[in-house]
């Protein structure tokens, strides 16, 4: 039972990060129908930037309070990621907006490799360790432990999601985004500036990715240039699980995937008598992805449509 509660807590924490990243995928997919392969790598850049900033602060001032350090990390990595996302859209995706899907997807893969290797040249191949500046305040729930950082991650992502929902449903920009998602040509005819809307989607998605990057590196304590790949894949799985193009679905899918993964890796050892250990954790998200795509390609909350799958 104690493992169960602990894995629920861990799963929800990881799940809220997945949800943030999945929102970025789903927004872009909803509007231009492109799987932005490079999104996971934007998260990676966010995490690497944040770690570098905190390392620099600690190196310069010695003891830094966690709030200041995280605040500074966010202040730097959000603009960096936004610039990156915007540039990628402007240079690589915009010329291909009318091209066949295959072409756009291949381009996105190319962008992902470019970002990864530039990051490797810049930060090197090694893991970057996030300094221990966050005091491990822990609450005891029975045998399970819930840290302050986990609470902060869950609350933070919940707040961001609410803000995003308000943005999409209550503002003019949000209305323009929804209109563009429904029909790009008609939205253009109604006076919506399509280019602005698409750029905005990339900017917002990249900002979310930066926040997710800061959360990940402070939670797991390490960042490396290849981390974006697996993370992006999981977040994409989350988006598909919830129904790609659907924002509520991305959140639901993210949390569910976090739970499935945590419970799966927590129990797979005892269920199979130790034949499969927790290092098969990454396989779970793929299995979820394949099962969802085969049996319900529109996802949990998505509308059924023939052409998508």
């Amino acid at each position, binding site marked *: 039972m104690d493992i169960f509660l602990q894995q629920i807590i861990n799963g929800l924490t990881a799940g809220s990060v997945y949800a943030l990243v999945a929102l970025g995928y789903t927004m872009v997919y909803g509007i231009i129908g*492109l*799987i932005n392969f490079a999104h996971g790598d934007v998260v990676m850049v966010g995490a690497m930037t944040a770690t570098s900033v905190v390392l620099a602060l600690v190196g310069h001032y010695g003891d830094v309070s966690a709030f200041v350090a995280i605040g500074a990390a966010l202040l730097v990595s959000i603009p960096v990621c936004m610039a990156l996302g915007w540039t990628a859209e402007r240079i690589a995706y915009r010329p*291909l907006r009318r091209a*066949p*899907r295959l072409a756009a997807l291949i381009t996105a893969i190319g962008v992902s490799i470019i970002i990864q290797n530039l990051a490797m040249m810049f930060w090197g191949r090694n893991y970057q360790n996030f300094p221990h500046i966050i005091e491990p305040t822990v609450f005891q729930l029975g045998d399970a432990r819930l840290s302050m950082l986990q609470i902060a991650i869950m609350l933070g992502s919940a707040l961001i999601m609410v803000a995003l929902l308000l943005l999409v449903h209550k503002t003019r920009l949000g209305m323009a985004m929804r209109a563009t998602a429904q029909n790009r040509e008609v939205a253009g005819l109604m006076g919506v500036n399509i280019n602005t809307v698409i750029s905005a989607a990339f900017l917002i998605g990249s900002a979310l990715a930066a926040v997710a990057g800061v959360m990940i590196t402070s939670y797991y304590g390490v960042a490396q240039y290849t981390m974006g*790949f697996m993370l992006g894949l999981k977040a994409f799985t989350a988006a598909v699980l919830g129904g790609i193009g659907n924002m509520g679905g991305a959140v639901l899918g993210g949390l569910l995937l976090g739970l499935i993964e945590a419970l799966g890796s927590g129990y797979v050892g005892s269920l199979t008598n130790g034949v499969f250990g927790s290092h098969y954790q990454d*396989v779970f998200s793929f299995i979820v*992805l394949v099962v969802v795509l085969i049996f319900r*390609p529109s996802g949990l909350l998505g509308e059924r449509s023939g052409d998508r799958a």
Partner: protein
Amino acid sequence: MSHTLSNVKNRTPVKVWLGAFAIGAVLLMLPFLLGATAGQGWIRILNFALLYVMLALGLNIVVGFAGLLDLGYIAFYAVGAYAWALLASPHFDLHLPFWIVLPIGVALAAMAGVALGFPVLKLRGDYLAIVTLGFGEIIRIFMNNLDAPVNITNGPQGINRIDTFKVGEWALGRPETILGFRITGPEKYYYLLMALVILIIFICIRLQNSRVGRAWEAVREDEIAAKAMGINTRSIKLMAFGMGASFGGVAGCLFASMQGFVSPESFGLSESIAILCMVVLGGMGHVPGVVAGALLLSIFPEILRNIVVPVQQTLFGDVIVDPDAIRMLLFGVALVAVMIFRPEGLWPSAVRKRELNSGKEKQA
């Protein structure tokens, strides 16, 4: 139509024969010329380039002919390589001859291809890409972790001391002297690889204009229309996956025998993408283009490596930018640039060119 055809047949193809003969002579002499001028290391690079040609041609069947974007193609290469490694190495103390191992490796790879094909039959385009990518990663994760409870793949350490390609007692890996000529292992492998590449090219060209090849093209252009024309899209897609995978299996077997060592590290996503890049750059669906793309992208980075490292050492006294990063960066830039400026590839087939440019014409 029949008139022009008979015309072609009647014309004495002396020039063609001469050209083929000249190319054949160059290909035959290439390892010796290369070994004498650039060093033995370049023969190994050439051999790897030939392996990449096989892989690119295999992927071309799936991506270029049938239009199914497969991002986990390296998994079939891995299956072939591990099949050879397990059946012909001291790991299980099995040393089966090549005429047993090679068919098993190819069959296993083809089966893996069909097994991947089944669940993804209904998926199209981008979803297919992600699922195949996941499949490639799953295979790698299993290879990394199947050292417990029973040690099958020896985990991340990989399997070494793998048998070389042997016909009876005649081993390709060992140097020997024939009629006063010293022939090294890589040179012998070159001829084997070249023969296989020519065979695969021949199969691909014959396939393209066969009933199956035209069915693949139909499925690629419009799946629903293809179905309406009576094509069994299900089996035709599975056939594409299986055929493509079997080429990967052959390449994998040869890789294991040539290298003498396999580990999961060789089969990462970056390799899948490198092969995709070769297909895309050369021209999806066009066999000569794909061969050119594979040769270009496997040899050019090596030339670059030989220039970049010494230049950096003389300029900065140290290697600052890793040549591997430059190689991958080059692939990324090539993918983006080709898709934006020349989506049909550098040396495209006429059909594909028309198709990939149709969007632009509408826009104009």
